[in-house]
């Protein structure tokens, strides 16, 4: 066994222990430790990715001394490694981009608490990605929820508390269902390790036994995770949670936390139940329907919103709809499109949040749509970044959103019955996206009247004023262009990863 194979385990443990470590440090040092941890994990994950690419296969890492089916396991393939690398990268950039806001919005005595949460979140995300054990997954789901809740409520005002508690309630509903589902699975198969469960499920399915319980189980798990990842109509908590928490929280929550759950769902589909059984269970049709409705409704809500942060948050609802629609096709192409969209949306949404904060900084910290007039001139980089993000969301060629739209459309054409609703939903949702995103872009490039400017005294922000944020924005734009222009290796990786995923 090569040393590099230990890295997934190391990274989980490292971030898990970095959390408590932060509690004894002051804010500044906690920040440094946190950044260092994320960077190290990024490096390790990259090494793992390189390793898996080299071997071209996945491997199982046994935790402790108990072999399957008793022990706990980690399983690493290309897909997992890629996700880990990507999640670390985005998280790093989000943390860098939100430095200023954190200092401003979080009480100085609580600074280090924030980093505890981030570290725990990272470890739980990594665990969700890597683990091969269902119950471990459940535990980390809960850790994830708790730390995410912490991220929301760390900026202390009424809105965030309310958002946090709503988030908790919905999350707990979801995890209750997930837990029940896991229990059912355990009951049906007698295993907790994914690979073993799958063997048993295959036998059960072949013999036709327990058809109904199996169906209910798949349903419970899917719905549970759907609730947790804010699939329409379970999104009520989302706008407040994303809209009022501190910047890096919003960015991380929108781009990573929900994606972690979705990745877990993919894993359950492929590695626990078996995708063929899922497809036959018709549960994906339900996901498809809600995905499509979410695409439309999320955008409509976003159009009605006049707070830019909440608008971006609502857009997440729509984008998550895309991802579930991709699942709903029940084809490999659809799955690849969804996975790509997980990446693409994560990259874009965090970019949008950071850019939006740059814009609001230049508008007297107002998030109101009308105060943003001309902000693109006051903070040039943020304006450009927001435009890039918006274009990507609209699916403009050259940016990553285009590729995911392309993949979705190709997947749609591939599936006969869902073709028309999917395509029309894609088109309509593109139009709706255009409406609210480009409206904002035009707004920030409409010069404000002189009198208003004189009265409101907006700050002009250059790149030097906000070095960290600017650096993050530049990286985000680069990532966006990279995924837009050189998507092929990524898509190829996803394909190969998915093949050895099950």
């Amino acid at each position: 066994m090569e040393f590099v194979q230990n890295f997934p385990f190391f990274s989980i443990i490292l971030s898990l222990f970095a959390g408590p470590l932060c509690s004894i440090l002051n804010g500044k040092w906690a920040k440094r430790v946190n950044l260092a941890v994320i960077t190290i994990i990024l490096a390790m994950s990259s090494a793992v990715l390189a390793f898996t690419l080299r071997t071209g296969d996945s491997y199982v890492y046994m935790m402790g001394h108990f072999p399957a089916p008793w022990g706990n396991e980690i399983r690493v393939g290309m897909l997992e490694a890629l996700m880990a690398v990507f999640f670390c990268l985005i998280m790093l950039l989000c943390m860098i981009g939100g430095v200023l806001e954190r200092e401003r919005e979080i009480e100085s005595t609580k600074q280090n608490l924030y980093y505890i949460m981030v570290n725990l979140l990272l470890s739980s995300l990594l665990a969700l990605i890597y683990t091969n054990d269902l119950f471990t997954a459940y535990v980390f789901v809960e850790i994830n929820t708790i730390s995410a809740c912490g991220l929301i409520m760390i900026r202390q005002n009424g809105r965030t508390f309310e958002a946090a508690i709503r988030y908790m309630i919905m999350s707990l509903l979801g995890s209750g269902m997930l837990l029940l589902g896991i229990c059912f699975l355990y009951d049906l198969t007698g295993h907790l390790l994914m690979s073993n469960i799958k063997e048993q499920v295959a036998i059960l399915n072949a013999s036709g036994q327990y058809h109904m319980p199996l169906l209910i189980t798949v349903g419970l798990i899917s719905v549970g995770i759907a609730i947790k990842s804010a699939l329409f109509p379970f999104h009520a908590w989302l706008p407040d949670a994303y809209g009022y928490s501190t910047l890096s929280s919003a960015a991380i929550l929108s781009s990573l936390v929900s994606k972690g759950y979705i990745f877990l769902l993919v894993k359950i589909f492929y590695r626990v139940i078996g995708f063929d059984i899922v497809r036959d269970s018709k549960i994906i049709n339900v996901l498809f329907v809600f995905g499509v409705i979410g695409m439309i409704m999320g955008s409509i809500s976003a159009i009605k919103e006049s707070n830019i942060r909440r608008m971006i948050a609502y857009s997440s609802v729509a984008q998550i709809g895309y991802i579930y629609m991709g699942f709903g096709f029940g084809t490999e192409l659809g799955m690849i499109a969804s996975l790509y969209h997980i990446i693409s949306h994560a990259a874009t949404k965090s970019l949008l949040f950071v850019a939006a904060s740059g814009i609001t900084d230049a508008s007297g910290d107002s998030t109101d749509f009308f105060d943003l007039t001309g902000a693109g001139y006051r903070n040039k980089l943020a304006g450009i970044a927001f435009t890039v993000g918006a274009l990507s969301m609209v699916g403009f060629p050259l940016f990553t959103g285009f590729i995911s739209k392309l993949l979705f459309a190709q997947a749609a054409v591939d599936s006969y019955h869902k073709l028309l609703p999917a395509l029309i939903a894609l088109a309509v949702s593109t139009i709706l996206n255009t409406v609210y995103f480009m409206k904002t872009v035009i707004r920030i490039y409409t010069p404000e009247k002189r009198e208003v400017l004189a009265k409101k005294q907006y700050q002009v922000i250059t790149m030097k004023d906000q070095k960290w944020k600017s650096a993050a924005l530049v990286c985000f734009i680069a990532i966006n262009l990279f995924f837009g222009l050189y998507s092929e290796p990524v898509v190829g990786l996803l394909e190969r990863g998915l093949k050895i995923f099950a």
Partner: protein
Amino acid sequence: MNLANLFNNYEEAVAMILFGIGFSNLLLQKNLIKKIIGLNIMDTAVYLFLALKGYIEGRKAPIVVNGVQSVEAYINPIPSGLVLTGIVVSVSVTALMLSLTIRLYRRYHTLDLDEISTRLKKEGL
């Protein structure tokens, strides 16, 4: 026949009913404390279910008292372990919820979530 199955497995049925009660309480109650109670009922229902699955008629708990007996003497220990883990999780979640509730109560002097929402809208935050 289905009804007979239901009666034979009445423990599981009870667990599910409890889960339903907890779930709907968590979802529908306005009062935050009642929601938390609902959460706990829901979790407990799942633990009950798990424990039931681990229990084998006529066997003992896997606690070694007079030397190790053969495996057949004990019930399945894994669900018990899971339940324990689950309890830890639910305790921490409950704690978090309660702390949040306290925060909100201090601010708004009410436990009604809808009331809080309307207040928030009035605050215009």
